[in-house]
């Protein structure tokens, strides 16, 4: 059971939901930028949500399935094909040994997730299979995938193997399941996302004009945008207090503003601590929309309260639980 990387694509890495518990040692969380997409892909193939998959960025890889496998693609729509035939994303697909997965133009979003039944079985490092590129550990040899890499795949769950048997066709290269979760679980990445955010600890240090501009004006994602964070360009955001801050913890979604006034929104590979003023924090249900936005795209921010943000988390978790229960009920026996 393995995947062979024929071409690596722009940046393809092994990720799970992140490495928690070691930020006090300076070790970043990492994990999928669009963790929600990876969770759904895993559920579709009967995996635990925490299984490792591949994060595929803009220009997809070419991958050969070395045995019969069961896969799902979620997140960005990067025009995936199996043996040259277009394949739908957001659904479970049985693939025969030797079938090749490739990608075409990025139609919507920029990060796609490949889950395989059994999960990508690279070793756990400090409790996670996520790739920590800068420290060169985790994932596959601590680096982005290269041509020739062979990734081990674990044993499918009862749900996964049951579904595989249902879909398997002796003479076909692949068969897609007919069911797909609704748009609540598989949203099409928006082209001009409006990211909801709560005020950050240093919000009050910014001038009234800057606060207003932040909520009202569009910001453009500059080419300096990667898994660590996105530099944005827009109206300058200035503080009326220029007090130096002591470094303190930061999170995914933190909008920090260096002295120049151009904000940076932090991503999954953010450093554990930072010393820039934190103007706002993108709420966690909108991290996927941030993860799917690419350089050149415009973003807007809209203010919500912590209470609203947490109610949205509850709604999302209920939707995920619904999918999980559905898979267990229909295919788990």
């Amino acid at each position, binding site marked *: 059971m393995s995947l062979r990387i024929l071409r690596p694509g722009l940046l393809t890495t092994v990720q799970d939901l992140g490495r928690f518990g070691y930020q006090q040692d300076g*070790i970043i969380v990492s994990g999928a930028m669009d963790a929600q997409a990876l969770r759904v892909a895993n559920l579709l193939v009967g995996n635990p949500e925490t299984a490792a998959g591949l994060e595929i960025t803009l220009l997809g890889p070419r991958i050969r399935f070395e045995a019969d496998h069961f896969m799902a693609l979620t997140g960005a729509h990067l025009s995936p094909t199996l043996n040259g035939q277009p394949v739908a994303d957001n659904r479970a697909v049985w693939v025969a040994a030797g079938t090749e997965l490739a990608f075409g133009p990025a139609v919507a979003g920029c990060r796609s997730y490949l889950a395989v039944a059994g999960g990508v079985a690279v070793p756990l490092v400090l409790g996670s299979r996520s790739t920590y590129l800068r420290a060169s550990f985790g994932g596959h040899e601590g680096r982005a995938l290269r041509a020739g890499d062979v990734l081990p795949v674990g044993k499918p769950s009862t749900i996964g193997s049951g579904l595989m048997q249902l879909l398997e066709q002796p003479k076909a290269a692949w068969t897609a399941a007919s069911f797909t979760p609704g748009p609540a679980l598989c949203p099409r990445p928006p082209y001009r996302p409006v990211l909801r955010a709560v005020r950050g600890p240093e919000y009050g240090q910014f001038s009234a004009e800057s606060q207003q501009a932040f909520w009202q004006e569009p910001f453009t994602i500059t080419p300096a945008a990667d898994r660590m964070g996105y530099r944005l360009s827009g109206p300058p955001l200035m503080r009326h207090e220029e007090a130096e801050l002591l470094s303190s913890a930061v*999170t995914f979604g933190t909008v920090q503003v260096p002295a120049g006034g151009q904000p940076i929104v932090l991503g999954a590979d953010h450093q*554990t601590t930072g010393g820039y003023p934190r103007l706002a924090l993108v709420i*966690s249900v909108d991290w996927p929309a941030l993860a799917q936005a690419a350089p050149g795209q415009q973003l807007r921010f809209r203010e919500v309260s912590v209470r609203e943000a947490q109610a949205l988390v509850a709604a999302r*978790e209920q939707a995920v639980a619904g999918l999980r229960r559905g898979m267990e009920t229909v295919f788990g026996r």
Partner: protein
Amino acid sequence: MSVAPPLPALPPVRLFPLGDAAVVLEFGSAISPATHAAIAAFSARLAARPFVGLREAVPAFTTLTVYYDPWRASEHGRHPEPYERVATQLQLLLAETPATAATAAAQVVEIPVCYGGAFGPDLAFVAQHSGLSLEEVIALHTAPEYLVHMIGFAPGFPYLGGLDARLATPRRPQPRPLVAAGAVGIAGPQTGIYSLPTPGGWQLIGRTPLRLFNPEWAAPSRLRAGQRLRLVAISEEEFEQQPQP
């Protein structure tokens, strides 16, 4: 007439949310040994008495940031306001945390450092900036018992408190594209040790042969917040002879 309580309570702590999945506890506004001790005492208490949904807690100079899963903290929807619930639980824990925790015997960690030469290309600049000789810089840098305030910037990178004020030197105007692991640097009033080869703008005055970080160690960072350490000057020969763990 009243009797002083045997264990004084912590000074007032400010709580505020950091997004929808973290809360900051601010123990003071300036770097101080008392603030540091309070953070350490509370971190130990929290580790011993975790609340439902706790993910991890990250100490910094004056704060402890507590990360939580709002859905788990709400016990899957039973409590509709996870932030309030977490904040209340933290307040209760704060109220019962004594200001001085029983800390382990204050063992001082010794870190060997080879100063100057190829290992410390900015030693001369620091000496010039502070109006001291190279030897005086080394003597002042190895004199204090430093406190590890926090690990951050990179895995295992210690931010050390206790640098002699005469050695404070601004960062380099242009960061170096690559600083070697083990490089010992100064940035303003801070001193620290690079744990990984990374870009960096600190003034480099020496290097330790010790590895500070290894993901295969059970505790991946050699140093932890709250430890005390001393830097011990070694020669180039001693640097080369240090076994790599």
